[in-house]
């Protein structure tokens, strides 16, 4: 498949050493991340179009809520939760129905009435390609501010 080269060039040695990066974060202190766990967001997030690389961080204090942390700006992180914990029949759309491939996460905010989840604009992680995107579900089925206090009723 490759063109034959006249001189025998040695294959570049693929070092199997994991690429580990250290991030200094405000919320979680210093953390080590493996590069293969980084998700690339070609379009960033709404309002944060310049952020392209994220990792999911676990914090014992907030499980099962995890944190979508910007690799490029580690001072920025977004609390995220599996929408299935709020609505069992949640669906981000037919094109994302392959649950082996796509993991939806909803972003949480904290208001005077407690925590709410943005069910209308989920993040979809594609674990096959390590890519991610935030989409807007066009139908009026899902709220941008779904209260966490009513969870587990279905």
């Amino acid at each position: 498949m490759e063109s034959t080269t006249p001189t025998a060039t040695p294959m570049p040695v693929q070092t199997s050493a994991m690429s580990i990066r250290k991030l200094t974060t405000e919320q979680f202190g210093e953390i080590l991340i493996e590069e293969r766990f980084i998700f690339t967001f070609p379009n960033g997030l709404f309002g944060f179009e310049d952020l392209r690389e994220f990792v999911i961080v676990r914090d014992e204090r907030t499980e099962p809520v995890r944190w979508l942390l910007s690799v490029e700006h580690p001072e920025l992180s977004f609390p995220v939760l599996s929408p299935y914990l709020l609505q069992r029949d949640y669906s981000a759309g037919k094109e994302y129905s392959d649950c082996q491939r796509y993991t939806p996460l909803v972003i949480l905010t904290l208001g005077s009435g407690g925590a709410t989840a943005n069910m209308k604009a989920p993040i979809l992680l594609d674990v096959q390609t390590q890519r991610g995107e935030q989409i807007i579900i066009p139908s009026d089925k899902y709220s941008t501010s779904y209260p966490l206090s009513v969870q587990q009723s279905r």
Partner: protein
Amino acid sequence: MLVLSRKIGEVITIGNSIKITILSYDRGIVRVGIEAPKDIPVHRKEVYDRIIELNRQATQVTPEALRGSLGSLQQAPKSKETTPL
């Protein structure tokens, strides 16, 4: 801003892939049909703005502040549906 007048049923094209059709007008509400390629998201602006605002607010949430607002979620038994990440 380019301003165009259109009658019901008339169409505006943007580039060679986007068509906007004025469908109806009734009591101050204009219904517009939009045909655009899948990779060009089309949204109501107020929804889009709200999502940007919510994303901004999300970056202000701290683990300490959030932990008190999770209620029964925190005792939820781990199910298969939690993210495998």
